[in-house]
């Protein structure tokens, strides 16, 4: 039996403006990336590369309000956002979903989705974002 594909959405488009950014300390990284997109009037974007540090990390494992959360105590966690997407919501506002890796002072590694409002930048977040324009 053929794989059902009618619910798989495809969007063709192209990459447009590139944004270089820095987030200063004590900013939630999900909200900061959304703020960058609002400032630049970007509705859709992808994270092309991002490194920085967090005070503490809260990584969501799964979806929904009751999803388990891995708390990784810092300070000074080294992070990278290895998959990050910004899409506009039903109100036309940019909403970010960010997944990545975290390393603590012992060099132990963790991974997951950065939970909105729960991951504050520590020293800095350095970021290359790129606008995505659907055709």
């Amino acid at each position: 039996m053929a794989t059902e594909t009618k619910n798989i959405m495809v969007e063709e488009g192209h990459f447009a403006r590139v944004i270089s950014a820095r987030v200063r300390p004590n900013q939630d990284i999900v909200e900061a990336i959304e703020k960058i997109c609002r400032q630049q009037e970007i509705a859709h974007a992808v994270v092309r590369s991002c490194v920085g540090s967090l005070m503490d990390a809260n990584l969501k494992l799964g979806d929904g309000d009751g999803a388990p959360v891995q708390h990784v105590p810092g300070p000074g966690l080294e992070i990278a956002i290895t998959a990050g997407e910004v899409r506009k919501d039903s109100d036309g506002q940019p909403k970010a979903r960010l997944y990545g890796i975290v390393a603590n002072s012992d060099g132990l590694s963790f991974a997951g989705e950065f939970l909105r409002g729960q991951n504050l930048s520590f020293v800095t977040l350095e970021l290359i974002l790129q606008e995505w324009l659907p055709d």
Partner: protein
Amino acid sequence: MHRNKSFVSLREARHPGPAIEPRVLTAAAAADRELRLFLPPGCDLLDGLAAKMQELGILTAGVRLAGGDFDAFSFYTGVPDPSGARAATFSPSHEPTLPVTLVIANAIIGLDEDDQLKSHCHAVFLDGNGTSRGGHLIPGACRIGGTGLAAWATATGDAQLKVRHDPETNFPIFHPHVGGHSDGD
């Protein structure tokens, strides 16, 4: 592990200098070059990336890496700064059991204070025992082994990142920089 609604309260970092506005800094430019680079065995990962970008006339890029083996590898982690001059500092270098296998990494390539290219790279990798570890890779201390390593880079044209001293954190840090002048604070 805990459930979504029962967080420990958020802690904020305390840095030596006063908080500086704005809290996010940006520079924008038109889409620029997209590159696939292949770094051969024996090449230092971060020095190799920076030197090749400099040769290509690229001043800032975001780089994505995954896979590849290393026959020399050192990394830092973040630790409290006992001097109090900064909220944290780098650990002594960690030397994992070799060979190291890179799982995934991001790197930012930008300009230092003397307009030479420098890198900032965080990664998760497997050490020679197969244990997953992570941290800040040290330029000049991560030598590619095996059959080499591919990297994908997005250059940012005039939307550059350039190091300058940050009085808030007392670190030299990449800041957005457009067309030869700072968007600054």
